[in-house]
């Protein structure tokens, strides 16, 4: 990856604040891939993104629904959990949200990888350390995130 930064989050609130800060650098069509084990904090991270975009609605995991839409001016949030799409037909129109008019967050992107264009996303990996402590690795090949990584380096490293 062209850009990469590793951070430690000590609490759920830390993770929400980080995601909320990152949200300021997102725009229509931004794509975030979230990876990490169950309970690593993917949904918590998405809650932070929502907060940063000014969305007050409660963000819940879309594991059952696959997709949840948060319509909000000026920018919508689309939250996809592809976990249940493992070995399934992927032709259900998700590309309209991935390449859409909002910010799209995808959990378990590995199960819909043919819908994701290379070098178009910000990747966030969450790793459980102990208790509420997480190692968060943020990376991207997208030049448009240069500024984000510079600011993250200033703020956190």
């Amino acid at each position, binding site marked *: 990856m062209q850009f990469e930064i590793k951070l430690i989050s000590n609490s759920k609130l830390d993770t929400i604040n980080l995601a909320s800060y990152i949200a300021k650098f997102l725009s229509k069509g931004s794509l975030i891939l979230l990876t990490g084990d169950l309970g690593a904090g993917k949904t918590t991270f998405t809650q932070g993104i929502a907060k940063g975009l000014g969305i007050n609605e409660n963000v819940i995991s879309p594991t059952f629904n696959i997709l949840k839409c948060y319509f909000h001016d000026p920018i919508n949030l689309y939250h996809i959990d592809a976990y249940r799409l493992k070995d399934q037909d992927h032709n259900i129109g998700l590309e*309209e949200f991935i390449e859409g008019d909002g910010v799209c967050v995808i959990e378990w992107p590995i199960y819909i990888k043919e819908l994701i264009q290379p070098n178009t996303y910000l990747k966030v990996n969450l790793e459980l350390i102990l208790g509420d402590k997480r190692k968060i690795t943020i990376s991207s090949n997208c030049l448009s995130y240069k500024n984000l990584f510079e600011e993250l380096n200033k703020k956190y490293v």
Partner: protein
Amino acid sequence: MYSLLLDSSNTKLAVGIAKDDILLDKIYYDAWQRQSEFMIQEINNILNRNKILPSQINEIIVTDGPGSYTGVRISLTIAKVVGVLNENVKIYLLSSLEILKDKNNLSICLMNARSNRSYVGIYKDNEVILNDCVLENQNIEKLIDKYTNISICGETEYLGLKSCKYDIFNNMLDIKKHKDPVKDVLKIKAVYLKD
């Protein structure tokens, strides 16, 4: 004879009402991915404000794709349900690309299919020049260059192309005249060219 016109195949929500093939009223606005929330209500609104009862609708003219996966299915499902419940209501299925055409000219109708692809159809008068299909965006301009004086129709900003003006409601009424109603309503199915 009243016709209800429905389209939600792309970013717009379109509901129209016509009497004897003359458009009486229309509702048309941006509702990308939200047509399901508003469509039934708008059908109700347009009927009420024109003082038409649901039972007076003789036919539904509806698009069956290609286009937004969910969007196409919203209008189509409404039409199918009405058609199944009341066999006296005729259903006409139209291409969601053809309704974008410039009625007076050879037209290339385009819609964003994502992943650097487009839904494309070419129409002239009531003739199909190129059947609706999916093409790579990089091939679109070459295709346009093949024709002199062709109208570019649709929401083509994503291709950096300027679209001509089109009137989907009058197009729908016009195209319908050359179509037969669906014979078996239960067999109505969305056209999703990516399958």
